[in-house]
């Protein structure tokens, strides 16, 4: 119901919304929870396990009960806290975990079975028969338990993630936070002020007490405007700081557009990473309930929330209200609700010596509320005196207060434990819990408004002063300064079930039962009962549960300890944390300059790391990839082929000491290489295994360009940086990755020179450009580089031009190749060509092979040191019995040789013990007309000509193979020259 004359919602702006299909109206400024309460709806959800009817317990982010699904179809957002969801026109919401309806939930039969579903029921009840677990029990439990469901459709909403930096991060914009931001901001520090609420002010919006002679909300608004006017202060409402991390990093979750009917171009949510030199934690305190029988009836809520609903939104769950507490603060609720014109029928205070601070309301000192009545909503409470006498009082709403817990969660995120305060009967944060973060205000135990204002101002000033800003303490406005007194009461003794964790349906009895079954450690009790393991992380219940555990085990609270608070403080959607990483955003896409034309030519593109490369270029009449591949291989061997090889890593090195440096990183010598020449090189890791291979060209005396394999480009760059900085800091050289700067194409085949001479501004010949030569060329006036190197084994070149000319050069090369009976070739043909030639790739140099294994041990120069040389000489790495690179061909001349298959002797047992090796690369050689493979075979170099069995159990292959030299085509290299 709405309370006349109360609340700060805009009653001139009516907003229509639906809940479970019914139409309601609320006002601008409402939350979904306040609008529903205003419309007379108390029942908003069903509990997780017993399907008990539930209404809101809080008015904020700690809400355990009022979880609803907001939005329709793919946009539906389950488990939205109705207390946090701002109302907008047309908002559609539905309740969760009920069937067929919220009012009539057939699964609430669980509640009748409660005696069997207590703590640990999972472990006891469903043990037998064993086979029933998967088939019967688990599906039934999963259907009965749970919260909201995802739509199952792709999420169409936009999310964002962002970084922010500041001198002082102020977390929370209540009285302490506002003063902290003001103090630090006035000093000139860069300040970010975050608050999880849509409106700043914290408790000031929920109280009657004045600040600086004005209503707290008015003072807040003025303060907020003053901060907004400061250029060095950034205000971030709707932003929850969810985690504290190392070196002043904080995670924050901003609900950017969840309060709008149409987010437009804005992301709905954003996950922030904030780097702050200092932080002031002004997160306030969270009220805790007192457990009593059936204290979960809709209409029972925290006393501060009841007061807040009246002051901020002008709503109450009913006209007849009662308040039950163990502290002075609860009296304010009775006082304020009576002043608002509600019928306060009882103020129950468990302290026998309490004084009535609420004015003219029926006062019950030394009494407790021992039971709530009303199945789908509170209808009456039972008040019990110290003498045991009970009376039943009809009410529609009950405010409960067991005191306040500082919201110190963030101070525990780096592992610190909070400290128990006997005075406050609450945990307080350790001052040094998070380096650079200072708790201030209620979170630090300052519970009056005045002490919050003062503490916040001082913390803001100190943070700025710490960073060298000349900071002065701002004037502290006048406000209430009443000391809050409290006498502990966690649960009212008695029969029946008294609820602690509302969301996970944990009762006082469950905690006692855990203790009785010796789950006496707080961590064990938590897991046995699931206390605090729901989406609200037990914000309203953890302390009560552990106090009851302490009582049940005869220990005090510090001895019992707390469970660990971990990030996030409140739920953060994965969609926000992973923003931008869906679909195409999952990984960057690297495209070569020939990409568009390759796609236009019909080439299927395949991934090579982040790159995309053409698999093959199909022509009319070719129905399989093999047909295209065979034709492309034949083209290269018989005419000329063009292949984009720009994805290979290219590192340009400049300086007089490049040769000496390369001698350190390569096993073979490079310092003797003449300008205008190219050399193949092998690189080892420090442990003696092969890291990478490739060619390096000496373009000029002091200018070199290294190529790496596509796969290892990043690793090699990192390695070169390491070697240069750690081992060779005195060498005079610089290098930089130029992979994207140059488009580079292989021109391979017997007609390659003919093709190039039709294109280059000055023709080349064998004398001027022999095998392994390099030099500058001019292509249509563009300065390029030409390398006479060959991966295919043919007379071949690689031509490089600045990347912006790549697309047009590729087009020209392909056109000319086609005119000469050739054309473009893709990865499949490239692979077959190199297998025929016995060239290794990372299929062979996969990180566990040595130079010895691939037959390159003579490339480790005996005359100089290099990275990996010492450890490559370890006895185990040069034994003849090691698997060595060999070629394989099927004896029948036709059986495919699957990669990954293992090799065994021609006869004998096939066991892991008799395994002789494995196949790394395979393909059909159109040149030889038979399948070929490369692989590693124990003592393989001595076995050329022998027969081995290739066995692949997965694909059911068993093929007798001849062991050969890895080089199957042109072993003497004659095709390369001339």
């Amino acid at each position, binding site marked *: 119901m709405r309370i006349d004359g109360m609340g700060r919602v805009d009653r001139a702006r009516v907003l229509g919304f639906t809940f479970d299909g019914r139409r309601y109206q609320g006002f601008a400024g409402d939350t979904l929870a306040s609008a529903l309460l205003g419309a007379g709806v108390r029942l908003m959800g069903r509990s997780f396990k017993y399907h008990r009817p539930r209404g809101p317990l809080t008015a904020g982010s700690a809400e355990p009960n009022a979880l609803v699904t907001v939005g329709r179809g793919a946009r539906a957002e389950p488990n939205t806290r109705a207390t946090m969801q701002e109302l907008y026109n047309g908002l559609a919401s539905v309740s969760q975990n009920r069937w067929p309806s919220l009012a009539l939930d057939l699964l609430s039969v669980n509640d009748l079975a409660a005696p069997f579903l207590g703590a640990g029921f999972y472990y006891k009840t469903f043990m037998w028969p064993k086979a029933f677990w998967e088939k019967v029990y688990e599906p039934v439990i999963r259907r009965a338990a749970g919260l909201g469901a995802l739509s199952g459709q792709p999420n169409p909403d936009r999310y964002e993630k962002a*970084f922010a930096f500041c001198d002082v991060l102020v977390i929370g914009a209540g009285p302490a936070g506002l003063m902290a931001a003001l103090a630090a901001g006035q000093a000139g520090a860069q300040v970010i002020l975050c608050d999880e609420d849509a409106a700043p002010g914290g408790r000031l919006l929920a109280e009657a007490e004045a600040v600086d002679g004005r209503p707290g909300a008015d003072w807040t608004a003025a303060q907020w405007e003053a901060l907004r006017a400061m250029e060095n202060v950034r205000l971030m409402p709707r932003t929850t700081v969810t985690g504290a*991390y*190392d*070196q*002043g*990093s904080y995670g924050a979750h901003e609900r950017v557009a969840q309060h709008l009917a149409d987010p437009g171009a804005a992301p709905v949510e954003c996950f922030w*990473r904030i*780097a702050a030199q200092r932080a002031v934690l002004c997160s306030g305190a969270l009220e805790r309930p007192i457990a009593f029988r059936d204290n979960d009836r809709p209409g029972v809520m925290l006393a501060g929330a009841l007061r807040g609903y009246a002051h901020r939104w002008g709503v109450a769950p009913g006209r007849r209200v009662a308040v039950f507490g163990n502290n002075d603060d609860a009296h304010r609720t009775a006082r304020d609700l009576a002043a608002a014109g509600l019928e306060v029928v009882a103020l129950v205070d468990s302290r026998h010596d309490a004084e009535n601070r609420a004015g003219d309301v029926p006062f019950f000192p030394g009494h407790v509320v021992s039971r709530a009545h009303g199945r789908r909503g509170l209808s009456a409470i039972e008040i019990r005196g110290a003498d045991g006498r009970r009376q039943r009082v009809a009410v529609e709403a009950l405010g409960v207060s067991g005191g306040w817990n500082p919201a110190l969660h963030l101070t525990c995120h*780096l592992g610190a434990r909070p400290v128990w305060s006997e005075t406050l009967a609450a945990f307080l944060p350790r001052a040094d819990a998070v*380096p650079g973060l200072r708790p201030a205000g209620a979170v630090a135990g300052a519970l009056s408004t005045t002490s919050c204002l003062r503490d916040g101002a001082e913390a803001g000033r100190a943070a700025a002063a710490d960073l060298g800003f000349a900071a002065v303490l701002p004037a502290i406005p006048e406000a209430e300064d009443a000391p809050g007194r409290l006498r502990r009461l966690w649960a009212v003794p008695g029969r029946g079930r008294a609820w602690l964790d509302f969301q996970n349906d944990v009762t006082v009895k469950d905690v006692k039962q855990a203790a009785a079954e010796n789950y006496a450690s707080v961590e064990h009790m938590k897991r046995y009962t699931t206390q605090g393991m729901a989406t609200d992380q037990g914000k309203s219940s953890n302390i009560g549960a552990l106090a009851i555990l302490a009582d049940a085990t005869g220990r005090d609270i510090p001895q019992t300890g707390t469970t660990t608070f971990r990030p996030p403080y409140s739920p953060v959607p994965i969609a926000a944390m992973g923003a931008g990483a869906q679909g195409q955003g999952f990984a960057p896409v690297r495209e070569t300059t020939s990409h568009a034309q390759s796609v236009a030519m019909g080439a299927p593109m395949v991934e090579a790391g982040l790159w995309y490369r053409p698999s093959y270029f199909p022509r009319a009449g070719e129905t399989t990839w093999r047909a295209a591949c065979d034709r492309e291989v034949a083209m290269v061997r018989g005419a000329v082929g063009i292949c984009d090889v720009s994805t290979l890593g290219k590192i340009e090195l400049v300086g007089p000491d490049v040769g000496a440096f390369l001698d350190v990183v390569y096993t073979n010598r490079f310092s003797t290489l003449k300008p205008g020449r190219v050399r193949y090189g092998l690189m080892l890791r*420090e*442990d003696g295994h092969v890291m990478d291979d490739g060619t390096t060209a000496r373009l000029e005396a002091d200018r070199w360009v290294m190529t790496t394999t596509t796969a290892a480009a*990043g690793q090699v*760059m*990192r390695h070169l*940086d*390491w070697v240069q*900085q*750690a*081992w060779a*800091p*005195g060498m005079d050289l610089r290098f930089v990755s130029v992979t994207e700067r140059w488009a580079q194409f292989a021109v391979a085949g017997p007609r390659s020179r003919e093709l190039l001479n039709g294109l280059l501004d000055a023709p080349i010949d064998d004398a001027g450009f022999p095998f392994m030569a390099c030099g500058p060329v001019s292509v249509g006036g563009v300065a390029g580089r030409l390398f006479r190197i060959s991966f295919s084994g043919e007379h071949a070149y690689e031509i490089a031009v600045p990347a912006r000319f790549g697309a047009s050069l590729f087009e020209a090369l392909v056109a000319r190749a086609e005119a000469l009976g050739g054309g473009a070739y893709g990865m499949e043909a490239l692979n077959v060509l190199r297998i025929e030639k016995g060239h290794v790739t990372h299929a062979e140099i996969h990180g566990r092979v040595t130079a010895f294994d691939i037959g390159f041990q003579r490339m480790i120069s005996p005359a100089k*040191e290099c990275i990996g040389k*010492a*450890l490559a*000489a*370890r006895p185990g790495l040069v034994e003849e019995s090691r698997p060595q690179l060999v070629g394989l061909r099927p004896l029948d001349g036709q059986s495919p040789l699957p990669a990954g298959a293992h090799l065994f002797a021609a006869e004998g047992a096939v066991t892991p013990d008799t395994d002789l090796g494995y196949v790394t690369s395979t393909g059909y050689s159109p040149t030889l007309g038979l399948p070929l493979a490369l692989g590693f075979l124990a003592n393989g170099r001595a076995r050329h000509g022998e027969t081995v069995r290739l066995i692949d159990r997965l694909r059911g292959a068993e093929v007798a193979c001849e062991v050969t030299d890895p080089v199957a085509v042109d072993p003497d290299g004659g095709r390369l020259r001339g």
Partner: protein
Amino acid sequence: MRLSCPLCGERDRREFTYQGAAAMVDRPAPGATTEQWSDWLHLRDNPAGRTRDLWYHEAGCGAWLVVERDTVTHEIFGTALVGGDHAD
């Protein structure tokens, strides 16, 4: 987590690649025994407390850093270029 690169200033740890213990810097001389090489390659301390390890500013300047930090408190005591201050 944030690291201070001596060349670039304080940066988010996502710009850096972790490598391992800074013991890697103390490479045996070329004539060292196989055991010395093997120890250098394989043996690492695993301290609960102060440690020195190598980070590479991969998404930054390419500098290799020695970072001294505490594995328990995550405090960072300092960062230095791996080869000393050779920047010219």
